[in-house]
């Protein structure tokens, strides 16, 4: 399975996780994910904005425009309560899934 296939199932978790620390705009979110994963997760940004807009429509994120001192104005996203609950659920589900995959693959479950 390619990384882009893996990414499809974890988009929500990745976006919500980086926004847990505070407000970010689209490019920053992509950059943060790239940095945190040591550039392992770097499939391009075509997936990012549809994911942000879907989460905003679902009430998990709130967005607001702000002027920038350098460059164009930015659209900042921040987590809502719904988004926080969604993050917990997604993280828990991912943990269970990853543990199961490790067990099947023969590795330690708590690695």
């Amino acid at each position, binding site marked *: 399975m390619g990384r882009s296939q893996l990414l499809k199932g974890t988009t929500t978790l990745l976006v919500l996780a980086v926004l847990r620390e505070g407000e970010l705009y689209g490019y920053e979110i992509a950059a943060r994910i790239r940095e945190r994963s040591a550039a392992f997760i770097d499939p*391009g940004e075509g997936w990012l904005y549809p994911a942000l807009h879907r989460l905003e429509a679902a009430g998990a994120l709130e967005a607001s425009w702000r002027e920038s001192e350098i460059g*164009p104005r930015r659209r900042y996203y921040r987590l809502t309560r719904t988004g926080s609950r969604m993050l917990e659920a997604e993280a828990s589900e991912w943990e269970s899934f990853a543990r199961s995959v490790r067990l099947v693959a023969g590795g330690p479950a708590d690695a």
Partner: protein
Amino acid sequence: MPELEGSSRDAFLQGIADGLPFDEAEKLDILHELAGHLADSTARLEADGLTREEAERTALDRLGPPDRLAAELTRARRTPHRLLAAAGAGTWAAASGVIYGYIFGVLILVVVSTVTAELVASVVHTFGGSWGSHLDTTAITLLALGVGAYVAGLKVTPVVAARAGYHLGAARRVTAALGGVLIAGYALLGWSGTLDWPDVAILVSLPAWFVVGAWRATAAAFPSRRWRLQILGLMLVVVPLGLVVGAGQQSQSSGSGGLRPTGVERIGLPTPEAVAAAQGIESGGGKVGGIESIGTAIRDPAVLAGWRDLRVEAWRGTGAVGIDPSLMALDPAARGPFAVGPAGFETPGQIPPWTWSSGDALTDGSVRLSGSVRIDRSPNVTLAWVAITGLGPDGRRYIISGPSFDSTAFNGTAWDWLTAVIEGR
């Protein structure tokens, strides 16, 4: 369009804009966000050592093809909440479109019809003739409603498309189908009044006006100058129809009389002498709300002992009330009554179900024989002959009272009109 540098970014953002089915404000928000992303991404890649051109191309490549991104953004933003908002906004747009179009249609139709009528009258007068017409308010009202339906179709489609997040083509199919069905329901069952066949034709065509409007709708601002010119052209075409209808209309009048119209024998045999002799001076009737009532006083009800199937019959007449009574006759083509109603002896103190009488007892001890029949539900009947008839002891039908005449016109919904035509009434 956000500030852009370079034709490839222009083309990319234009591709996104073309693929988004939202309104301008929402599109601009998305385009600004993506333009900002491209600027950041390009700056970062330049800082990493790429040339400006390479950095820009790479930034665009990382976002993927614009049509695919636009489609994914559209799907992401298309929520049930938007569909509800679209339904609300669409209803409002349709209502305001009908009102706008109706007012515009009435103004144009009245002005152009009046001017045209005056011009035609002047020309005819110049050649020594005379010509007169009046505006047919029903036809004008219905044609203006048609304009309203057309404008509603024009307005509602782009609003629904933008609010729901669907492209105009998809929204067209939905609004045309839904609006067409709703308008068809109203046109057939909702509108009620005095109708003739051109009115019914306009009513039946109302869904088509809406569907054409929905199909011709664009995302451009409404109303455009071109649209106004189209409507004006349309009105110039349909005005002659309004004038023809107006010229064909007859003024409504009512009355009754003791005429013996040609063809009266088809209603029934003449009143038997004994029955005629038993009738008092009081007789009468009239028309209220399309229901014609007729009655006569019978001094000795026993004279009708053995009679059965007393009823009121309405027969189609020819000629017109108030022009030349001698021209009024039963329609030679009429094979039977076009409408039949109940008749019977009244019980003093009780109001009969046919409602004409107050139920008061007659002073000379006579008993009132009365009945009523609806005469405004038959297309193409402008004059009705109404009589009380009954089957005598010999089994033959006689006229007991009448016939009296009254002018009439069809009154009801387009559905009533169509079913009456199908049933041959």
